[in-house]
């Protein structure tokens, strides 16, 4: 079981998706690919984290419509 709380895990994944692509040279037409991919990286990471810990559940019901 993780030593990190869910909030801490969320923060770690978020920073990965937010910042850690920067400087890797993944840019197209002066746009950071990491920033464009961020939403999808969060989705994939969140899904993998949840599956790792809770079987096949899914996180975060959406609160916008």
């Amino acid at each position, binding site marked *: 079981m993780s030593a990190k709380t869910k909030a801490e895990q*969320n923060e770690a994944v*978020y*920073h*990965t998706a937010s910042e850690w692509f920067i400087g890797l040279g993944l840019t197209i037409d002066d746009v950071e690919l990491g920033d464009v991919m*961020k939403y999808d990286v969060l989705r994939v990471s969140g*899904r993998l984290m949840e599956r790792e810990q809770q079987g096949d559940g899914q996180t975060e*019901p959406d609160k916008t419509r």
Partner: protein
Amino acid sequence: MAKPNQTKPDKRVLLLPGHPVAQGYWRGLSEHYDLCFMYPQAMEYAASISLHAMALNQFHNSDAQESALNTSAQIAAKAVQSAQVVAGRLMASLDGSAPSEFNSAQDWWPGYVLQHAQAMALQYAMLTQLSNVREIAGCVVHEDVAPDTRGLVLWCKARGIPTIHVPHAACHLRPDGGLDIHRESRSDWILASGSYEHDFYVAGGHPADRIAIVGSPQMDGLYAEETLPSRAEARRVLDIDNDRVICYAGTWTQTTAIRGRGVFEMDEGLHAMITLAHEWEAVLVIKSHPNGGDDKVFEQALRKTNTPGIITKHYLSYALRAADVLIAQGPSNICVEAAILGTPSAYIQTEGFDYAHALPFRSGVDRLGVTALEAMDSRGDPAWQDFVTFYNAAHPDGGATDKVTEKVVELCQ
């Protein structure tokens, strides 16, 4: 495939994703600009309502294709090198709780990046082809978090083209709800629906002087009373012959953050609603989320429990007008729509999210019966008007669509 229009156009081009949630302001904007949609099916839909528009894929040619393939191949090569770096950083920060897939990131990460790079490079190559023959006045997006819309906004920003975000829905993340991509906007300007949305994006770091409040254009249709059903008509059309009607608004999973209990919460909520419907001897109208959710699950649950009910993704005004009370799974914007139509609401709370107003009523599933009753008894309370105005400044008349058009024209001079 149609050819791009290169015959002395008299209007500049406005870029839009083409999501139907934004269709309300397409016509007004088309009087000032030639609209170009990122989603090709939007052009066909626009044509069906007599709107002339272009689609970005009309600018897909062999030059764009070759440019995109070359660019994405170079990015994939860099991704091979970066795979271990990114995965290593994530595993280190997660203290051993990282998903096992990150141990073998070099096996799948480059392919994952390549897929995104190809889509992004092709989008940019087509935008470049478009910009070679037409002047782009600006872009207006309904959200700028997903890859295609964020990619569009960032490409425009890198070229000094004005970018405007008209949020398609308010996000009800609490201030203490943790980091979340929905707090961010990359666009130069935000046209907010009301004070709540203004404050939400300011708290997220967007400059206050770059946010204008215009109201909620996607809710304008709820003010056209002559086109809306009365409660009696709604019940007649839905074939409901019962004194008590509850509308239950479903939700969907997004997985961009690690919080809440996801599908387990939804199952609990549905079970509580079915229990309540039986206690009240009510008909349960399940208005499922337009973006997803599994209607089969709803259907099986109603059949298994012999619960009288209806399931629909559509007919919003009928479902809400027919109901004595709305119960939403989480603080959905359907509560604002219900209040505009005069139907009181409550919602089942979830981690990290809440309305920032005393209304709607709220609780967990454990005391849902009491909460639902309090909500139902509040019908007609003037406080609901204050609630709607907080989230939709165009209340009580509507007309946000015209304000969006005026503001876009002003900002895209």
